[in-house]
């Protein structure tokens, strides 16, 4: 079920572009490219800093759209979760990223790149609970081999 193709080259290239964006935002603007932080602080902000956050957040789908058009959607987009699971997952991701002060980008990329102990631990924790959740859903509840 749901097998995907291992694409290390595209992964590495895309990852380096993500790293380039994070490095650029830090060097030019002094800001950390953590999506959940940028998103969260757009709501109860220090309004002086709202414009760059909105610009960054608008750039995300713009870039993904350009790349998807250019590659002919080679890597696809497939959501198979039940509607209730989508809502539960969204709430958990939203609350968890704010409570834990970061997500895959803020802790997993920017934090680890700085050698932050908090980010390394947070990344290990969410990788573990993420893998545990997939194990429970796919192998215990749905009985996949």
């Amino acid at each position: 079920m749901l097998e995907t193709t291992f694409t290390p080259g595209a992964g590495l290239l895309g990852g380096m572009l993500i790293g380039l964006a994070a490095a650029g935002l830090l060097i030019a603007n002094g800001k950390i490219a953590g999506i959940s932080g940028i998103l969260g602080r757009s709501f109860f902000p220090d309004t002086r800093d709202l414009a760059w956050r909105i610009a960054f957040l608008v750039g995300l789908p713009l870039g993904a759209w350009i790349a998807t058009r250019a590659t002919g959607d080679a890597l696809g987009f497939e959501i198979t979760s039940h509607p209730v699971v989508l809502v539960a997952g969204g709430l958990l991701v939203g609350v968890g990223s704010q409570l834990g002060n970061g997500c895959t980008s803020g802790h997993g990329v920017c934090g680890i790149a700085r050698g932050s102990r908090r980010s390394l631990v947070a990344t290990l924790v969410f990788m573990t609970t993420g893998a545990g959740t997939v194990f429970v859903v796919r192998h215990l509840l749905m009985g996949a081999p």
Partner: protein
Amino acid sequence: MRIAVSLVCGVVFGVGLAISGMTNPAKVLAFLDFFGAWDPTLAFVMGGAVAVSAAGYVATRRRERAWFGEEFSIPTRRDLDFSLLGGAALFGVGWGLVGLCPGPALASLFRGSSELSSFVGAMLVGVIGFRFFTRQRRGVLPQPTT
């Protein structure tokens, strides 16, 4: 200028997410499925991102301020508290349920997928709700003066 740079960085970030395949939730879930048809791509994405981002971080260490005059806003905390661990744990469960985290979820909004919209809607409720209910404790809004 800061805003233009921010937009460009967002675009490059979005291109990277899409090229790496991380905008496909099925691919993220396949990475987290260590006991199934495991797809290790995400590790390569993270490796590439951390390497380049670390080089950028090292470059800032020799500077007082960013190019456009801002001070560097870099977290300095080192303590491991309940918020960090509990938040990361909850985040991971949500990530593992759907295969989406905030970056890819926002990046894929251009597709107009209704499934994605319900995830993003719930995520925004979570983000805004959390920040609303904790805003005084976290000092986001001014405290009452009395």
